[in-house]
């Protein structure tokens, strides 16, 4: 009732302001929904691909990414709990068709595979697929999905060029699969070929990537897992297909964490915009509240009036946010998709959006809750309005000395606690960085302190700014400054929102810069070969490999001084996917020795080279709490490697961490001597173009070979790093939006508050341009305040983010470096946004009746 009588007319009268308030929640919820939906879509696309490819598979046997020998298949088939077990190889190849990207090749054994997967043919000779003989006898046979065929105009017996390790080969389309679950996997870019042909085409030797199986009738999956686990040993993972989705998720953990932090900030910012609006509404409606109180409304009724308003705002805003979030999710999903293709080497396209109802409900809930939380303080203040005072005219915006003091005291106390939280772990002195809950408490408190202090700081800064503004424009400048000083709440809410979003931008940019610095430094020694020879255009695609024999061939090419064979593969260590890098350590020690983070530099390489030890990357040590001397247990197909850690080195190959070992060890335990990359050193660095040419000529038409120069590889790595930090640009966009929204909001109120003042100004001779200018100056000043506080909080935030990255995400040890470049670029961006935000309010200020502006009721 109260709502209908009181709130609705208010909303009606302030349509624009109501919209802006709602926009705040829309923004927060949209970013939350957008980022999570995108993230989930990619994850879903991955697990869908896995599921669809898995067909009726109940369990999969894998050994990380490395694959295993063919004999494992026979063992699995002989298990009593296994009804059917079939080998699988997956390879991602470049289609060489413009705009078609990568094709996922599923290498399977047609003789048994049909028990697990359906290969219904759309066209083509049924006998081809029903009769594996034809399919198997011709190694150029592929069956493609209806989707892929349609997109590329392929029919039965069409020729399809694909990149293999033997160079580009023409394959024959022997059949086209009907659209089904299977064919929609990997966005439809799917082809099936014989597993043994795939071994040959993609350099897999006599290994399989995994074995898919179905459990024997009457036996349970658990029984089967147990039997195979005992039979195969620790080097193998036996899990349902969904397990791979979990591993993929683990791999994306770092990214998900960043997404989480970003969307939380967005919600926080949205909360501020709402708080701002409601605080202003309470101030403006004091008289109305006073009358209501005088007429007998209780405090509770007043409080619920405002909370009710915020709930309604929250519901509308959240709904809008959900819709808008889904709209932006597609764009974000595309960028995450390309990111993980490039960064993690797992090709994945999110075909459709995973709009999970649960997530949307959570978003709605969070939106409404955020909105109501933001309104709690204003509602409380409204309820405390004294009817007598409220009906008198006067200033209410000024922060009372008492409140300022209370805030300052609270800030000081919380600040002290926050610092104490930081200090606590260092007293404990543990390598893991002490108590994580304490650390995060400290982080949250630091942000809260900043928020508590922001009105005071905004006020102080505005006072400092006044003489400057007055000097620039005696009237407009001074009045703009006074406007901010007079209404610190109005001003500081915008400033605080801006501060938060800029702090996030600064932190991300700082992290990006620190990562760049570290990665460049690392690459300078770790990536010092003159040339890199790769089997695929993408550095991170490891599904196509070279045979070992190529090493000798490359070494014999004139101009080549030395080669190093690298085999890297994701393996499962302590249930986490980490990167195993096998390289000729002795040679590496001569060319690319780096001072270790821990361990004896000389002994470390010697022991690793002789297979008596392992080196781990700093980030793995950090994430798994490992140190020199610890005994590592690395499960491999041929048994568990038990060796001590002899050195901890910086290595940024993988976010989950890297285990470095000698090639001989890898060959022995994985029974795999294939090579991902050849590192090539030349006699004369000047001969790079010539030797590169020689290598390409040597393998022309024989093998698919990509030769990258040192510079090209580094550029590639940096490009990937760039993509990882593409999130920063989303953050900047959010900051700009916040700047605009917050400032429009503040100014809209400001021009209402200052209506008389602006009227007087015009009455005594102020031109419209001058009125506009004072509004612009106010906007720009809010921008400046936001920038200053944002940079300050950003500097602190960066510290925390780097700590989080170090301890909880990637284990990367990054040096603190303030991102001056981004900060400098933000200044004009935010000021321009502020100016744009001021355009409309400034116009509104010069329109309207002067008489009304000047008159008193």
């Amino acid at each position, binding site marked *: 009732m109260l709502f209908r009588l009181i709130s609705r007319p208010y909303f009606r009268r302030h349509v624009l302001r109501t919209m802006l308030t709602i926009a705040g929640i829309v923004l927060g919820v949209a970013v939350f929904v957008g980022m999570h939906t995108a993230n989930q879509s990619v994850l879903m696309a991955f697990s869908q691909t896995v599921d669809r490819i898995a067909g009726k598979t109940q369990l999969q046997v894998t050994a990380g990414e490395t694959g295993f020998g*063919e004999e494992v*298949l*026979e063992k699995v*088939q002989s298990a009593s709990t296994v*009804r*059917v*077990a079939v080998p699988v190889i997956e390879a991602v190849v470049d289609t060489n068709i413009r705009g078609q990207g990568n094709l996922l090749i599923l290498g399977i*054994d047609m*003789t*048994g595979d*049909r*028990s697990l997967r359906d290969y219904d043919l759309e066209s083509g*000779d*049924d*006998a081809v*697929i*029903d*009769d*594996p*003989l*034809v399919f*198997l*006898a*011709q*190694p150029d046979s592929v069956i493609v999905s209806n989707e892929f065929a349609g997109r590329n105009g392929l029919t039965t017996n069409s020729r399809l060029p694909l990149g293999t390790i033997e160079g580009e080969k023409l394959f024959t389309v022997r059949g086209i699969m009907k659209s089904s679950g299977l064919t929609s996997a990997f966005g439809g870019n799917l082809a099936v070929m014989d597993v*043994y*042909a795939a*071994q*040959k085409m993609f350099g897999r030797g006599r290994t399989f990537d995994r074995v898919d199986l179905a459990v024997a*009738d009457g036996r349970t999956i658990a029984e089967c897992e147990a039997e195979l686990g005992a039979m195969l040993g620790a080097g193998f993972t036996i899990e349902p297909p969904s397990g791979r989705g979990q591993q993929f998720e683990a791999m994306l953990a770092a990214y998900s964490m960043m997404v989480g932090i970003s969307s939380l900030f967005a919600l926080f910012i949205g909360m501020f915009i709402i708080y701002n609006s409601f605080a202003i509404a309470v101030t403006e409606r004091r008289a109305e509240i006073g009358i209501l109180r005088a007429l007998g409304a209780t405090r509770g009724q007043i409080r619920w009036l405002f909370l009710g308003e915020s709930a309604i705002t929250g519901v509308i805003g959240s709904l809008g946010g959900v819709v808008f979030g889904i709209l932006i999710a597609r764009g974000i999903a595309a960028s995450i998709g390309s990111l993980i293709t490039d960064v993690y080497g797992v090709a994945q396209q999110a075909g459709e959006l995973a709009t999970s109802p649960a997530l949307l409900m959570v978003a709605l809930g969070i939106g409404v809750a955020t909105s109501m939380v933001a309104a709690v303080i204003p509602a409380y203040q409204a309820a405390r309005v004294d009817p007598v005072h409220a009906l008198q005219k006067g200033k209410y915006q000024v922060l009372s000395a008492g409140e300022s003091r209370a805030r300052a005291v609270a800030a000081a106390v919380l600040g002290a606690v926050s610092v104490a939280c930081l200090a606590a772990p260092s007293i404990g002195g543990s390598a893991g960085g002490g108590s994580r809950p304490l650390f995060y408490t400290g982080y949250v408190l630091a942000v809260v302190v900043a928020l508590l202090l922001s009105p005071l700081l905004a006020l102080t800064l505005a006072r400092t700014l006044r003489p400057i503004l007055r000097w620039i424009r005696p009237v407009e400048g001074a009045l703009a400054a006074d406007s901010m000083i007079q209404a610190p709440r109005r001003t500081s809410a915008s400033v605080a929102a801006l501060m938060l979003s800029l702090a996030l931008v600064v932190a991300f940019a700082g992290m990006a810069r620190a990562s760049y610095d570290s990665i460049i430094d690392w690459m300078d020694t770790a990536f010092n070969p003159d040339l890199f020879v790769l089997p695929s255009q993408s550095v991170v695609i490891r599904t196509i490999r070279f045979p070992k024999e190529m090493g000798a061939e490359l070494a014999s090419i004139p101009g080549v001084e030395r080669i190093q064979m690298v085999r890297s593969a994701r393996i499962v260590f302590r249930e986490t996917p980490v990167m195993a890098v096998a390289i000729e350590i002795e040679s590496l020690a001569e060319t690319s020795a780096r001072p270790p983070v821990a361990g004896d530099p000389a002994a470390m390489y010697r022991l690793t080279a002789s297979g008596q030890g392992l080196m781990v990357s700093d980030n793995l040590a950090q994430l798994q709490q490992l140190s020199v001397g610890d005994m590592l247990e690395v499960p491999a197909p041929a048994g568990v490697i038990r060796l001590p850690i002899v050195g901890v080195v910086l290595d940024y190959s993988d976010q989950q961490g890297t285990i470095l070992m000698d090639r001989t060890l890898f060959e022995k335990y994985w029974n795999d001597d294939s090579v991902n990359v050849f590192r090539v050193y030349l006699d004369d660095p000047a001969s790079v173009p010539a030797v590169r040419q020689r290598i390409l000529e040597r393998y022309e038409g024989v093998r698919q070979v990509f030769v990258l120069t040192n510079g090209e590889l580094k550029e590639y790595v940096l490009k990937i790093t760039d993509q990882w930090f593409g999130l920063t640009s989303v953050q900047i966009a959010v900051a700009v939006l916040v700047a605009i929204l917050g400032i429009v909001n503040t100014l809209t109120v400001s021009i209402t508050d200052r209506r008389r003042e602006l009227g007087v100004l015009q009455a005594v001779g102020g031109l419209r341009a001058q009125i506009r200018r004072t509004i612009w100056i106010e906007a720009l000043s809010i921008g400046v305040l936001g920038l200053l506080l944002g940079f300050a909080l950003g500097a602190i935030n960066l510290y925390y983010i780097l700590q989080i990255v170090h301890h909880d995400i990637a284990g990367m040890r990054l040096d603190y470096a303030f991102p001056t470049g981004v900060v400098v670029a933000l200044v004009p961006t935010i000021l321009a946004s502020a100016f744009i935000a001021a355009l409309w309010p400034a116009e509104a200020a010069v329109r309207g009746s002067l008489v009304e502006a000047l008159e008193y009721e």
Partner: protein
Amino acid sequence: MSKRRRLSAAAFLWLPVGVVVSSHVAGGVTAQAADDARTIVEEAQRRTDAKSQRYEGLLQVFDARGRISDKRWTFERLGSHGQSRAVLRFVAPPEVKGVALLVVNHPDRASDQWMWTPAIERDRRIALQDRSTRFFGTDFSFEDLEERDVNQFDYVLAGEEPIDGFVCWKIQSTPRRTKSSQYTRSIVWIRKDTYALARIENYQKDKLVRRLDYSDIQNVQGIWTARRMEMADLTRGSRTRLTLDRLQYNLPLKEEDFTLQAIRRQ
């Protein structure tokens, strides 16, 4: 035990000598004792024993739309039933020419099978695991080709009936509970004059799903052998015909030609 897993392409290769029975219980049963259904089946089995076999086969699949696909191979077998080894080499059509299959049969467990594909110069083990699936695009399922253990079925003599003018015993065989089969029951016709198989009908519940007809039954070197077999899949509406040419029994074949190394040589 392993009998349950004894499903094999190998069995297919014995088609000419009878599908339904196993050698395990082959013994000296006389024609006079022929009324007993089990004895009839055992005797039919015994009469097909041979030291070795060779033939040239033509396999024709007629699908429901009337299309025909042909394959030809040469087949050699050394030994009989549970102790035998066999090599099958495709000669036509060109896409499969040179592909070879080696089958090593074991009396007590599933046979081992390898396939040699010359184009990628690879041999591979074939594990045929799901017995109800179709065998190499034909209308035979793997189970149809399995060597059956006589002891896993119950037989009932259901009367006499002429097939192609020859009087046959009509015997119903039902899998025992220990035996898992896609079929609920089968009806087998065995000619009274020669103990040669004439027809098999396979039922799922009460529905006839597959029928195998034996024809052109000739005495080759004392063994009555069907030169033509035709399996009709009544659900799919397609049928598969196997014709044997140049059939010989008991020729001198060398053990060393039935190894993995041997099939790698062309």
